[in-house]
């Protein structure tokens, strides 16, 4: 272990000597201090805070990712190219120790820089907020909606499986389905239709959602909802929200005039949660004009429950970012031990790009034709389709959401998220990469004449 730390120390010293750290620190300082001054929010205090968090930490993440990518690729590739590695491999260190030392050096460097950047961002945010004379309303909004970590709870799903199977069986029995219809697609379509029907609220009717609140809290709960309306215009729809068990005399009731497609929130007292940890929420459509409200089955209505302080959430966010940077370090050191610096850097950049366009790749996997037609796809379409499917499944294990999005809107970045990134990306994938990197490095001929 001592040898690994010694190599890590060498890597850090080399980075400091080559001014990499100084340049990075300068770039980070510029990003943290100058960026909030140039970024335009939406004109609200909450918008300004969200932009500051999202953009400052986003810029920090980009700078550190690029630096990690470059430094990781250069760590071994440059030493091989400039023959410095000859000095190291003649010493009593294995190539696995060399690989791990370089990786740990990167990890330590990233940890220090991220801690400085994170600390400064956090301090800057509070300095901005403290020097402004905020109204009571603004302070409440910040305290309860933004500078907080709230767990997003979805309503218990309504089961439509039995009905879907019954309708499907009926359609088969009556031979309504054509021969070309694929049974799995038909069943999925029936399920989708039934789910959408179950989450539609016609005029003068009521729709019920039940939430299972995971932790007891005294802080108000927040209901967040979004719907579309059957009207083509976007006139607000009158509805009444009721929360708590129907038999309770103190049941929460709030009339709302809500614009379709917008995201709306309302606070509900926490004491309305039943002893079994459930919260019943009813929505009544009372719009004078007949209009149907349609909620998305997955996330049309959500409950936000206070979980922890903003500082803890901020720390977990940094931890996730560091985990992702460490994974990137492992990838770039591995590719650096396989290729020369330019090839390794380009390959890593390509791999990172593929990991970040997972959602687009997923859409592309659903396309069965690119140049042919739906009725007749050709060989090219088939090849492209399988290429997209392959790329999607290859990059899927590495695709993770950005922790900055939830942090900026006051949603929880959980410990399990951070543990997942460190467990899966760093330990498992990083371990595999370490094994592969060491294996390649072991077989690489370093004494070739140039």
């Amino acid at each position, binding site marked *: 272990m001592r040898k690994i730390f010694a190599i890590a120390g060498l890597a850090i010293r080399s980075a400091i000597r080559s001014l990499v750290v100084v340049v990075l620190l300068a770039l980070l300082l510029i990003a943290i201090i100058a960026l909030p001054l140039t*970024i*335009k929010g*939406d004109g609200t205090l909450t918008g300004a805070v*969200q932009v500051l968090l*999202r953009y400052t930490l986003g810029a920090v993440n980009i700078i550190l990712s690029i630096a990690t990518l470059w430094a990781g690729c250069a760590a071994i590739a440059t030493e091989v190219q400039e023959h410095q590695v000859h000095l190291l491999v003649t010493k009593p260190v294995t190539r696995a120790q060399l690989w791990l030392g370089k990786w740990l050096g990167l990890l330590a460097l990233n940890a220090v820089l991220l801690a400085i950047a994170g600390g400064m961002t956090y301090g800057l945010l509070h300095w901005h907020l403290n020097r402004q004379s905020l109204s009571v309303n603004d302070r409440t909004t910040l305290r309860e909606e933004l500078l907080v970590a709230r767990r997003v709870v979805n309503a218990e799903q309504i089961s439509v499986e039995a009905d879907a199977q019954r309708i499907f069986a009926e359609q088969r029995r009556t031979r309504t389905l054509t021969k070309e219809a694929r049974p799995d697609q038909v069943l999925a379509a029936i399920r989708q239709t039934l789910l959408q029907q179950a989450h539609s609220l016609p005029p003068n009717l009521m729709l019920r959602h039940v939430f299972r609140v995971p932790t007891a809290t005294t802080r108000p709960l927040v209901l967040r909802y979004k719907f579309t309306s059957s009207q083509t215009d*976007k006139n607000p729809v009158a509805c009444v929200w009721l929360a708590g068990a129907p038999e309770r005399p103190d049941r929460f009731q709030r009339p709302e005039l*809500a*614009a379709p497609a*917008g995201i709306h929130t309302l606070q509900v007292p926490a004491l309305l949660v039943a002893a079994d940890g459930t919260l019943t929420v009813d929505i009544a459509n009372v719009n004078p004009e007949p209009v149907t409200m349609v909620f998305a089955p997955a996330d049309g209505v959500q409950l936000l429950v206070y979980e922890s302080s903003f500082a803890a959430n901020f720390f977990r966010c940094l931890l996730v970012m560091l985990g992702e940077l460490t994974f990137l370090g492992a990838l770039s050191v591995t590719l650096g031990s396989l290729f020369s610096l330019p090839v390794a850097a380009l390959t890593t950049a390509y791999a990172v790009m593929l990991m970040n366009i997972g959602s687009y790749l997923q859409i592309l996997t659903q396309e069965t034709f690119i140049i042919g037609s739906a009725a007749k796809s050709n060989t090219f379409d088939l090849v492209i389709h399988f290429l997209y499917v392959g790329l999607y499944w290859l990059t899927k294990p590495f695709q993770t959401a950005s922790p900055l*999005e939830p942090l900026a809107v006051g949603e929880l970045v959980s410990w399990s998220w951070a543990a997942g990134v460190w467990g899966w990306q760093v330990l498992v994938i990083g371990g595999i990469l370490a094994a592969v990197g060491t294996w390649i490095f072991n077989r690489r001929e370093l004494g070739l004449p140039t």
Partner: protein
Amino acid sequence: MKRNTTIWLLLIAGICFWQAGRLQRPLVQMRRELRLTTGEPLENTPPLVAFTTVAMGGFRGVIADLLWLRASGLQEDGKYFELVQLADWITKLEPRMKQVWAFHAWNMAYNVSVLFNNPTDRWRWIHQGITLLRDEGLRYNPGEPNLYWQLGWIYQHKISGNSDQMNIYYKRWWADEMATLFGGPRPDYLHLTGSQIQRMKDVYKLDSSLMQQIDREYGPLDWRLPQAHAIYWAWRGKKFATGFDTLQLERMIFQSMADAAMEGELFINRSEQVFIPGPNLAVFEKARKAYEKAIAENPGETSIQSGHRNFLRTAVMMLFTHHRLAEARDVFADLRRRYPTPEFEQGVEPFVYSSLTTLLRNISQREATGLVLGSLQQSWFWLAMGDEDRAQGFQQLARTVWREYMKTRNAPDIKERAGLAPIEQLSEQARSMVKESLTTSEAKAKLAQ
């Protein structure tokens, strides 16, 4: 040897720079003559714009697309806080592309604003749309008529129109902002202070001499109201417009003039918390002339003629209800002469009555009571506010509606079932309702007489 090569290379580079500088002017001139760009070359641009438009070359399109995708995704998820910045970047990456400016301004003013329940939030987004076009889009594209139209459209349609349920708030806020700027309904052009002129120019991009010119041509306009600003921007865009753009901007001018005639005078009574945009009869003749000018310049455009016909029809009703009978007759004569149809063959009074009769034919008892009572309340209200002409017009309208409605319901059984209460009784009821809603003793005293 090495030093000599460096000196030679530097010399060649210097000559190339000098030659490029010399070619710049003729190239700009050619670009202008060939109408390759409508605006002047970008000068004194912020570093970000200069960098993105020159250094990034063709890649800026790709970056703009990625930012656009992010903006759409965020909007879909209801995360609007980044939209202003993203719109700013996207437009800066394509500063000469008018569609990009138009889309983002429209998206903020129309699509995003309506997603909020609160009028303050909605207004903030409409304002973002206005400032994006006015302060940035027109700065980089000063010769692009469509952008003037887009900006004018936000004033004409979003703020002045009633398609948005919260339009009255927008009108009120804009009026407050303009009243603070001008110190009244319109600038006192002869006594504008230096700071006032500067603020008009720097913040609102309003040129006082141009406003004066517009007032001479179309006014006096109430500059607290959005129609005046729609006219201003359309007027400014017209000098760069050709073909369809000219027609579009002219249409904006005469339609806004019609709007100004119908509700282009602001009645504000702060003590009574009253904010009513009402007819501005002073600009009625100029609105008429604006239509006539547009018809003469675009003889083949039937849509302008049908707009003109509707304007005159509404004007007859409006003048009649405002007790401007002579002018109502004059406009009606013009309407009959230009658009000879059977409905205009009768006189002005029968025309007004028949229009009302058509309306009243299928009206229910409840609706008729509401209409009569509403007109009577308006009459008493305007009397309390000191506008006797308007009060008399509404009184006349109420009585006409009552009479016409009761004409077909005179039979005792129908009268009892579907008839209206006596007009005097309804009038008294309206008076007491208005009196109760007033807060100042001065206004109440006027109704006591």
